[in-house]
């Protein structure tokens, strides 16, 4: 048996934890740069606010219903997520972090006979100890546990737990779930299935292996088996290293000058380099791109990207900045209002597999020591405290985050204040 534990409206719940006033009040959290609604409390969902809608399109609704709006506070969400996940770890010996607010728990070694009770215990503990409401779905496979979780949210909201303990209880949720709502079925396959008479997941499990293999490849077949209760998806106890890493952002204001773009590119590169070092890998290719805002019809439009190959794979911040700025230099054109730029590192390899070049003239040993020290200082004293000159100290390209709450759990000056 597997369980999928999922935090309800996670970002909204984090905000509410330190703002008890917002209990039962509609809350919306906006994406980076205050662009779109990415989390909605139940009350906000009831107002018809859709996931991913740009803020300007719902501004009237937000105002009319006095919806409390937040910019995304990833420092807070990250800390709360960590607390939730580590608490979940105390229940099982094997667990897979699936996203910031979801985890799969391996329950095959559980001594508990009554997994429903275990689910209820998990839910109660997380709510009590951390203050975050979660929903638990338990079933034979990952795909079914995901479905059980969704079913619990829709049908057994008060309990917040669903255990598909036997065929009857599994069939009930299969019947309830339309093919488009099966985890792993995209819009294309949903259409294909409906056109072929498969309306619900219950219909789909009766499809023949051959038909599914033929029309939905081996991935579809694996999914079919999962729905039939045979575990067929790999279990990933540790996240695999990322294949490529992208850091890009829209600017708070439009940028025209090269110097500010250079700073942004240097910062995004530094962020990619840090992620590479954290996952112990190096890159052999870095791409820089920039673009204007296509929705500003009054502006001249331009967008470009350039990939730079590195002589030797690296994860050193100054070296990567050097190549990223070379790339930027090749694509930058003056006279445009730039809205976004970004850096992608590709062709990532484990750092033990670097092939050195005969003509390499970087002092790699020294670079490694510098990077290590830099990371240590920044971990101890604050993100980006020590940085390369090219990163600058200007904040102009920084994100727009007008409705940011405090870092209630990680910064001593921003702890919640009680007037007593």
């Amino acid at each position: 048996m597997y369980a999928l534990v999922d935090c309800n409206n996670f970002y909204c719940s984090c905000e509410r934890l330190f703002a008890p006033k917002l209990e039962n009040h509609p809350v919306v959290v906006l994406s980076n740069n205050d662009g779109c609604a990415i989390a909605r409390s139940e009350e906000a969902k009831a107002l018809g606010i859709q996931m991913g809608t740009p803020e300007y399109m719902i501004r009237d609704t937000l105002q009319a219903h006095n919806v409390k709006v937040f910019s995304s506070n990833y420092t807070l969400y990250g800390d709360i997520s960590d607390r939730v996940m580590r608490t979940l770890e105390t229940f099982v010996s094997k667990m897979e972090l699936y996203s910031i607010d979801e985890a799969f728990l391996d329950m095959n070694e559980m001594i508990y006979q009554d997994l429903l009770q275990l689910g209820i215990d998990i839910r109660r503990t997380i709510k009590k100890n951390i203050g975050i409401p979660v929903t638990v779905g338990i079933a034979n496979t990952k795909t079914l546990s995901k479905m059980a979780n969704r079913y619990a949210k829709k049908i057994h909201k008060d309990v917040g737990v669903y255990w598909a303990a036997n065929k009857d209880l599994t069939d009930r949720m299969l019947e309830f779930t339309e093919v488009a709502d099966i985890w792993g079925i995209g819009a294309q396959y949903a259409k294909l299935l409906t056109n072929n008479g498969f309306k619900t997941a219950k219909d789909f499990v009766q499809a023949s292996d051959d038909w599914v293999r033929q029309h939905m490849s081996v991935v579809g077949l694996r999914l079919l088996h999962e729905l039939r209760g045979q575990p067929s998806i790999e279990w990933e106890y540790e996240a695999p290293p990322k294949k490529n890493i992208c850091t890009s952002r829209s600017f708070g204001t439009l940028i025209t000058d090269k110097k500010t773009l250079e700073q942004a590119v240097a910062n995004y590169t530094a962020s990619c380099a840090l992620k590479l070092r954290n996952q112990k890998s190096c890159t052999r290719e870095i791409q820089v791109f920039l673009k204007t805002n296509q929705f500003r019809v009054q502006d001249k439009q331009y967008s470009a990207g350039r990939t730079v190959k590195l002589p030797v794979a690296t994860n050193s911040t100054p070296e990567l900045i050097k190549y990223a700025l070379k790339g930027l230099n090749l694509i930058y054109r003056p006279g445009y209002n730039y809205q976004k730029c970004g850096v992608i590192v590709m062709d990532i390899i484990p750092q033990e597999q670097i092939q050195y070049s005969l003509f390499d003239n970087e002092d790699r040993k020294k670079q490694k020591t510098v990077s290590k020290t830099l990371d240590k200082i920044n971990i101890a004293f604050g993100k980006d405290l020590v940085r390369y000159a090219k990163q600058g100290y200007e904040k102009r390209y920084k994100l727009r985050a007008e409705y940011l709450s405090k870092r209630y759990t990680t910064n001593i000056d921003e702890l919640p204040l009680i007037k007593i």
Partner: protein
Amino acid sequence: MGFPSPARDYLEERIDLNKLLIKNPLSTFYFWCQGNSMVNAYIPDKTLLVVDRSIEAQNGDIVVAAVNGEFIVRYLKKKERKCWLVPANNKYKDIEITAEMKAEIWGVVTSIISNPKEIKNVRFS
């Protein structure tokens, strides 16, 4: 190189207050508080409270509660099936928690970290 230290074999780790003050790091949160309604409970102005959510609040505990949407710090007093939030300063009133009130215990205060300068003029009653 000089002489090896005779204390070398007797080294111990320095005192770590975190170990003393935090039993359950995952459920422990911190609050600043301002004001003097709890001054006789050794919570003067500008105190840092260590709050553990995982503990079940008992009669007489100092708790952080959310009452009608506002955080408050008080003694929890339970008597004859009634619940009270009681200040530690007789200038303030007790609050009875009633059914029509929106009230929940947010966490239990497990340590009080304050500056002695803030307590020195307080006269405990």
